[in-house]
């Protein structure tokens, strides 16, 4: 296993001891699990706010993957990208929550299944 993970060791050492053995693999696993949790939450829950929060989870999973790769490649592009994404995500969260409020006012409900007007 260690042999396998050698190649995945983050390029830069210097992490505090408990983290020293953390490799790209760990980060990507975290990211992937976060994404799947978000996805399952999104699909199974019908509350609009919960679903929105689940999308945020998937969003952050992607951010973690970006940062991990950025570190792995010793390249700052990914990290700076995530800074922008976070900013935009904040704005988007405000907008999305406002929309949720509006939707709630329409039907007095947060059930996503109430909204099926685009049915073909």
């Amino acid at each position: 296993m260690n042999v396998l993970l050698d190649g995945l060791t983050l390029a830069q050492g210097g992490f505090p001891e408990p983290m020293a053995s953390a490799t790209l693999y760990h980060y990507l696993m975290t990211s992937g699990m976060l994404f799947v949790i978000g996805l399952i939450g999104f699909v199974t829950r019908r509350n609009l706010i919960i679903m929105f929060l689940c999308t945020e989870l998937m969003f952050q999973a992607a951010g973690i993957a970006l940062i991990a790769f950025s570190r792995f490649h010793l390249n700052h592009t990914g990290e700076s990208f995530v800074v922008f994404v976070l900013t935009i995500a904040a704005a988007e969260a405000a907008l999305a929550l406002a929309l949720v409020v509006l939707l709630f006012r329409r039907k007095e409900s947060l059930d996503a299944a109430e909204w099926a007007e685009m049915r073909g």
Partner: protein
Amino acid sequence: MVGLVEQLQTLQVVAAGVFAQVEHGALGTHGGHEAALNAGVNAAALGAVTGELPKWTLLIPFLPLLGCVLCGVCAILKVRNKLPAVITVACIAGAFAATVGAYMHTMHDGHAQTAVVKAWDWIRFVWGTEYKSPREFIANFSFYVDSLTCLWMLFVTGLATLIALYASEYMAGDVKTAGYARFYVAFCLFVFSMACLVMGDNLLLLYLGWEGVGLCSYLLIGYFYKKPSAVAAAKKAFIMNRIGDLGLSMGLMLTYVHFGTVEYAKLFPLIQTYLDLAQHGKIDEIPFIVQAIPVLFTIGAFGKSAQIPLYVWLPDAMEGPTPVSALIHAATMVTAGVYLVARFFPLYLCSEWALPIVAWGGALTALLAATIGMAQFDIKRIMAYSTVSQLGFMFAGIGVLGAVGGAAHVFTHAFFKAMLFLSCGAVMHGFAGQLDLRKLSGVAKIKGWKIVSLAMFVGCINLAGVPFITAGFWSKDMIIGDAFADHGMVAIGWILLGTAGLTAYYTFRVFFRVFMGPVQYEAGDEVHGDADHANHANHANHANHGHSDAHGAQEHGSAAHAAFHPHAPGLAINAVLLILAVAAFAVIPLVHDFSGGGGHSFWASSMVHGSTAGVEPPHAEHYKPFGMDAHRFAMIGSIIVGLVGIVVAFFLHYVGRTSSATSKADSIKLGAIQTAAQHKWYVDEAYHAIFVLPLRVLAHVFHAFDKMVVDGLVNLFGMVPRGLGHTARRTQTGVLHDYALRMAGGLAVVVLAIWFLHSGGWSGWGGPGLVEVGSVGGVRP
């Protein structure tokens, strides 16, 4: 004036040049009859221009055209008075005067001359070079006036004037509608077209006129266009004529292909060379194409002149107003076919088959139509079948080489048949559309109907051929005599003789039933097929007589017809009928030579002999039935059958008849023959079964093919995307979760596919994927 003379001289020079060309080359290429050609050089070429006419001859066609335009303007300006009638009568009377003038010029010094009057260049194509196959197609808008033209135009314009006058009263009920001006537009256009047909100096102008009269016939038959039967009759006439016109147009094209010209002045000299061959008994040497042209012309003539097998449209054409029936469908247009045959008589002589076809077609039509006419009850239909029958006589006359007899019969028939129709029309007009001879009786005894009855009587004796005192007798006699004189056509003589007897019977059947006997009548339920007009007629009656009688009738509770009083014809109708009655007698000396010896020195003969129809037929052995001169035998025979026919009609339909509905003839039961004759020998039904039904079936098949295959293919192109869309739209549920699931599913598929590929396809399947992921990492530098 000087310019005109020069123009005419130029024409003559052109014509002469063409003759020279013909003799030297043009025909030599078509069969190499050099010897025959040299023999055919005549001093005065057949049909060549020999004189000139003043320019006012052009008034004959163009005055009616002016009338047409003016009546059209009246129609546009919504003129609702008799102005169109006045315009028409004036214009056509002017054309008649011009015709008389042209006739006097043509027959100036006792010899008929031929002249061409040019209006303008119409069609002129010249191609090729002078040295290398020069070709040209010239059809001028110019008019060829010889004695035959004069003969035709005299009665066409003369009768048209009278009938326009008659129609001004007959159509009076339509004055307040748009129909009156429309009627006269078509009427004038008809006279113009007829003038083009008869006077055109080339086949193309003849064809223009031919189609023009067909169009006017269609328009006028369908005058009561709200009546389905009138529309059907108009359509039928037009379609039947199309079949004939196909023959004529093919003949026209073949004429150009073979002779290289369609102008009479150039064409007839070319025909002359073939005619010489025919006259020398060398008809076998005439090319097939030349022999085919007159046969094709005959198809056209049989269509226009209603002969077997294309005759069925004419009886139906009686749906039109009666003046139209009288002018177009009895006196003038239907004789266009006879004109065509007479005009191209030299060409017919060049064909082995054309004249026998004409003769037999005419004779059989005469007999068939007469047998149908005997069994009909509608007096206008009887007259229509009589017209078909008499046209058959004319064709038979020309077919047995008696062009004079045929043309003379056209001339006399025009007068008496127009008169018969106009008399029937007056009856129809006065009795609110009643045409059934079982519902009319004793009309002659009703006050105000004397002149109509007299005209009818004069017409009937002419049609029946009462000996010596009627023009119809002499012209018909000439035809039958010519048939007996022609050795090969004696059978036709017998057919025509028998038909003459039938004609006498059915003619006087109408006269004795409708005009003689007890006074008894029933009004028709309409007038001329037009409900508005019927109301008008009834109003007129009530205004005249209705104050006491109408109430009486209603109190008695009898049918509405009981209050009916026929309204007697007025001044215009009576005047026209009187003029025609006088004319019917006045033409006798024109069609028979009373100097004795049965010679041919009478007017109609000189008119025919002065034209292209005057060529001498090949000499044939004279047949002498029972050792008598053919014409003498024919005269005796037709006197006997004519009188027998009248006497039979007298005993069956006059003696002892007490009501309008029945006569002694009813007791004669002929069973199936009678029924079949009443049903016109089921010819219409047969045509329907043989031609119409298969075409309809075919149409349905094509319709089905169109609907299923063609439309189906088009629809298929629509259906496929539509079906796909229909399936795909189900995925669009509008529910957020479904979309999310599908996105996740898609993502899963993509991830699995990548994983699968990176694990080495099927071979690496089952191995730990992470090994491969590791190797990816191993790429890193």
